[in-house]
């Protein structure tokens, strides 16, 4: 199968899942809570006002029609209007999404770096101190709630040592032209070094917090798979050709160890997003996670629904992307 038809098949297969997710969200947010209008206006609004609002939101129609309206809107990218700000929810999400993306990518990279290097070196020195310490690390990191880890790092590096800021993305005194919304990238393409350092400093604590939490899974997978790969014939054959230890470890063993890891990454991504919500709240990071929590406080249902739909689609899309990357890394998937 060519890569292109593989991608197309993969996307088509995801469609029923997306549909069920949308139904589920509709059910949870529209049917369980009882009357969303009362939720918006409060119990004491006059009947006419309630009726008018009801009509405005299309809630006087039968539930089935409402459902198809909702599907149609979502398909058009219309997620409704925030009752708090009166801005289209989609625009608000679009504004905040880059922050979440920047954080999760950064965290993912940190987790991968820790996982790959520590995991590979631990596999190379199986049962030696570096390997054993990796296991102890994994246990503790995994039992620690992400927000608590964030708080501790904040306390240590932000409050006591004063090395890093404890929240936000950019200091108010620093100016930066926003182009992509990924501030690290923006500061790089505008050659704004002052902003770059400032952004990086803000990104470090939340990024490390989130990265550490998922690193233990990568670490274990890389380590165990690499140990397995190092015992394979092709590693012995590579050795017999005189390749350098580094090349054998990273070029052959770790590279092959990665093939099963990519398939597991999709699941890790859901964990990453859940972690992102908590991390964003801990570090006042203006992304979708803290957006969701904020909107819940104000019971802004269109925005809540929008954010949840966004997360659902995000997870599905990422799992597709991961499968595609997987097909690129492991050509056997495609054939």
């Amino acid at each position, binding site marked *: 199968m060519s890569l292109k038809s593989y991608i197309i098949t993969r996307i088509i297969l995801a469609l*029923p*899942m997306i549909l*069920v*997710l949308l139904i*589920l*969200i509709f059910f*949870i*947010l529209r049917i*369980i*809570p009882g009357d969303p209008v009362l939720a918006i206006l409060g119990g004491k609004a006059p009947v006419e006002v309630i009726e008018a609002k009801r009509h405005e939101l299309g809630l006087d129609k039968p539930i089935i029609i409402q459902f198809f309206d909702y599907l149609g809107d979502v398909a058009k990218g219309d997620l409704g209007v925030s009752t708090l700000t009166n801005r289209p929810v989609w625009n608000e999400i679009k504004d905040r999404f880059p922050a979440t993306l920047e954080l999760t990518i950064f965290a993912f990279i940190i987790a991968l770096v820790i996982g790959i290097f520590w995991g590979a070196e631990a596999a190379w020195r199986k049962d030696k101190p570096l390997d*054993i310490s990796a*296991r*102890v690390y*994994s*246990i*503790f990191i*995994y*039992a*620690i*709630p992400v*927000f*608590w880890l964030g*708080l*501790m790092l*904040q*306390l240590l590096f*932000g*409050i*006591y040592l004063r090395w890093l800021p*404890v929240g936000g993305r950019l200091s108010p005194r620093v100016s930066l032209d926003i182009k992509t919304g990924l501030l690290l990238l923006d500061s790089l393409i505008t050659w704004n070094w002052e902003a770059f350092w400032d952004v990086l400093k803000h990104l470090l604590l939340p990024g490390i917090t989130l990265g550490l939490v998922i690193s*233990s*899974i990568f670490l*274990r997978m890389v380590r*165990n798979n690499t140990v*397995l790969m190092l015992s394979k014939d092709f590693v012995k054959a590579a050795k017999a050709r005189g390749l350098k230890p580094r090349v054998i470890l990273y070029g052959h063993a770790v590279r092959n160890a990665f093939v099963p890891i990519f*398939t*597991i990454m*999709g*699941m890790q991504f*859901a*964990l990453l*997003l*859940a972690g992102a*919500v*908590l991390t964003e*709240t*801990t570090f006042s990071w203006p992304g979708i996670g803290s957006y*969701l*929590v904020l909107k*819940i*406080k104000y*019971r802004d249902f269109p925005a*809540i629904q929008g954010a*949840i739909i966004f*997360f*659902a689609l995000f*997870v*599905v899309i990422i*799992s597709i992307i991961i499968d595609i990357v997987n097909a690129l890394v492991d050509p056997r998937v495609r054939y």
Partner: protein
Amino acid sequence: MRKKFISERLGEFISDLFGTGTGWLTFVGALILIFYIILAVFSPQIAPYNPTERVGRSLTAPNDQFIFGTDNLGRDVLSRVIYGARIALMIAFIAVAIAAGVGVPLGLISGFIGGPFDRVLTLIMDAIYSFPGLILAIAIAAVLGPGVINIAVSIAVVYTPTYFRVIRNQVASVKSELYVEAARALGAKNYEILMKYIFPNVLPSIVVVLSMNLADAIMTEAGLSFLGLGIAPPTPDWGFDLSNGQRFVLSKAWWGLLYPGIAIITVVLGFSMFSEGLNELINPTIRERR
């Protein structure tokens, strides 16, 4: 593919470190659990102060009188940590009971009946399952509002598909086993077959999943209450106390953050060690180990 419980992962990490078949780890896990259960049950007797009352000056650092210090409202952190075990364990147990109470029967029926009913239910469960658990719990907690049962329900929804999937798949495979066929041939009723032949077969898996689920439930509860979606203040709750404590990091009030966190971590570790041991005991062969 299957998501893994925190306990399960931790169990893997732990047996990576100590090797399998470590009975003493299970024992330590059980000790930790008993310790927290005692704290939860006897909090009024154990806690030195009323956890919701001002008993000292605000934000007192740990000293002889308040060994864990006091929070911003002058409440004793130690007492709040002790009482916090109540809420954490209570919500965890209720959530797990609901998840199992819904997931297991649905799994049994779905696996047993098969057909379109099974397919639709499986699709729905898979969709819930693929959703990031915490975010789903957030959404449900947001519509349900605060309260022990509401929080427990929000958490339960996240884990119901796990029970469903485990049970459904086992039932589907047990169903075709010889003795079930034989029972059916002898004219046993569906209900009888389900309860007499199939249920006892899947019971060990249920026990294991139950025990592993608890740590996750506690972690999710802590997350929800940290986000302000837990039970209403001033009830002591570790997650909520952490978010409350965060407001005073600038005053370096580390004690408000350190102790509730350690409580969460030790409970999670305890549950994980215990369930890992239980799992090895009950299902020595089911484990997929590399």
